[in-house]
């Protein structure tokens, strides 16, 4: 997560909800989060608290979302991470930023490529593990056939962004209201 500071300040201009988000963050664990943030205290809320928020608790990708936006990659989020998360998932964030983060969310093994195993995990999360193995395999092969432009058997960020273009309602679906 290099250049995090610049991303943070760049994203905040999409976020007009800062006070409300702060209180939401604080409500998750009032005893851990101080009201006074001027000294930039080092407070991290564990993933269990983040994952229990009503906006996230039924989302099949909540763990990946928390991991992607957290500093330590484990899902334990500071206030900065929390604000990042909701600003990217808000309506105002631009499309390429959302595409970048969506790519990271679907990339389960963090290797900067969406490979077949990542797709299989995505599909299983989306269908409650009820598809048979053959069906999962067929769908993943189909997806890679359609999306892979450089023919390396996995999707890079460019392939993903190209796919996103063909789903014009992506902006509205990759959006969490808070």
């Amino acid at each position: 997560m290099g250049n995090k500071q610049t991303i943070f300040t760049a994203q905040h201009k999409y976020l007009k909800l800062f006070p409300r988000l702060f209180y939401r963050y604080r409500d998750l664990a009032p005893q851990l989060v101080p009201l006074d943030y001027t000294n930039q205290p080092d407070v991290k809320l564990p993933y269990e608290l983040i994952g229990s928020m009503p906006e996230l608790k039924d989302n099949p990708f909540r763990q990946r979302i928390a991991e992607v936006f957290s500093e330590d990659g484990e899902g334990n989020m500071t206030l900065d991470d929390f604000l990042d998360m909701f600003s990217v998932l808000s309506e105002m964030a631009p499309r390429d930023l959302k595409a970048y983060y969506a790519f990271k969310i679907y990339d389960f093994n963090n290797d900067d490529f969406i490979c077949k195993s990542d797709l299989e995990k995505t599909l299983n999360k989306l269908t409650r593990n009820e598809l048979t193995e053959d069906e999962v395999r067929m769908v993943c092969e189909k997806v890679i056939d359609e999306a892979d432009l450089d023919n390396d058997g996995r999707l890079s960020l460019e392939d993903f962004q190209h796919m996103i273009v063909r789903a014009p309602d992506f902006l509205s679906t990759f959006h969490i209201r808070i």
Partner: protein
Amino acid sequence: MVFVTCKDTVTGRACCVVLCTTEEQNLVKELVGLSTRDRIRAIRGLSMSFKEKKHIRLQSHAFRCFADCSENVSLVSVSLIIKQYNTNNQVLIQWSCFKLFSQSFRRCGYSIKSARQTLKLWQSIMKEIGGRFGTSVLSYFVFLKWLLMFNIFSFLVNFGFITIPLLVYDPSPNIPPNVSFTGLEMLTGAGYFTYTIMYYGGYSNETLVGLVKYDMKLAYFFTIAYEFKCCLSCFPCLCLSLYSMASSFKKNYVLADPTSNSAWQLLSSWDFSITNERAVRQRKNNLRVQIQESLSDKAQRQLLTLSEKLKHLGVYLGFWLLSTSLVVGCGVSIYYLCQYEQPAETLLVPFVVSLMNLVVPLLYSLFNKFEHYSSHRRQIYALVVRNILLKMSILAVLCYYWMNVVAKKFSCWESVVGQALYRLVIVDFLFLMLGSFFGEFLSNVIGTRLIPRLGVPEFDVARNVLELIYAQSLAWIGIYFSPLLPAIQILKLFILFYLKKVSLTQNCQPPRRTARAAQMQTIFIALLFFPFFVGSLSIVAYTAWRLTPSEQCGPFRGLNSTFSVVGVWMDDLHEIPGSQWVIWIYENIIKSEIFYFLMTLIIMAIIYIFWQVTQGRKELIGLLRQQIVNVSVLYMCL
């Protein structure tokens, strides 16, 4: 200036009204209609002295008061008081009259509206069913309600135009002395009922002379014709409501554009803003079903080798032959049974017919399990086509027997046919009730207690809709032979609604396939309607056109065919002056073939135009989609 005091009858307070001169009347009339603020502003702008302005203000205020309290003041008390002061009180009375009239009109409108709400039959029940079980199950109930409405309309028309004139003219039926009413008639429809207005035979062919000259023959003929025409013209309403349900369903449940078939679009369509757990579960379910359907559409088509294809073809042909032979066997056996059944008033034939209608579709479902269809949709189509074939052939055999054998054998054959139809309707109802019990209740018991693997059954919309359409075809054919049969049908449908609703809520679960298969089911109801309706209509038309009405009973006795009633009427009309236009229409439009040819041409042209418009719009949608993609590409490159 005159003062009028009137007492408000409700609150008891007195209000004082000042009557004014003529030229002031118009001014005050205008001012009273304005709101208080506008009124004050208007009065301030008048070019009068202060005193006159004050006078105008008082009067308009008084009129306003009077108008307000006249809500509770009866017109009688006002006019009594006014009569004592007969000066220029036109404005006052006009105003009060108008106010009171508009009041009562408004109240009447409210009561009509609330009555209409209660008349919207079963609105809340259908909402509950639609919310819990989805649109495909709801479409069955919508169809049932539509049929019920049609039967009510049909019964009222028949009763009003055919039965009531006869009852008014001749209230006692002419029953032979040795026949009395036993309870068995309710089941068999014969005996006492044969001579009553229940059947065709109970109607006279005379021109009833009462307040007007009422020709029973014409009334009977035109009423029946009108009902069939109404059914046909109301059918588009049914189609529209079903289609709108289906398309709104599609918007909510079909997550991606099914024509693009892109698996990626399915994956990227997950809506992150869903927070309700049930909605999430349902969305996942839908996604899974969609993926499975899009996979099965493609996969199986490619995997089959030639020998496997031939084998499947052989299996299909074999089962189709088997089903067709079953149908033929049923038809032949019913025909022979009809001939063999000697006292024709037993329930044997209806019993056997209903039994076949119950058992053979089960056999078809069994066949379906052995055949391997490439898609679920084809499976449903095959099942539906076989069931339609079965029911239509049974009806065809029965009608053939009635038209060819009964019509020649009995003296009052239309009543005999009417009785046969009555028995069929009653026994069909009994079997529907039993079928509901066996189909749903027992499946539930088996699925939950005995064989848990099967699970709770789903409501089989296709089978139920077919049964409903079959029952309604019996009623349609029966309208001609037994004008009061719609009454039985109304009762039947009414009870069936509640029965099915209870059975549904107790025994069935919501359908799991919530995607394309369900959408298709709502639309095919409309398609199924047509063959049965056209069949019933053609049977009645054939009866009216080709068969000789019986000599001794009924409204058409003595004529060569039922249609000749119109010819006879046209001849009579020659004598009545002023009816030349009717004769002209009959001769030149209804009797001429060119008219029908032209109408067909025009209708075909209109259909072609609409079809072209639809095609053009589809292309436009495709182009616009492509434009969206292009714009997004442009945006990404910037």
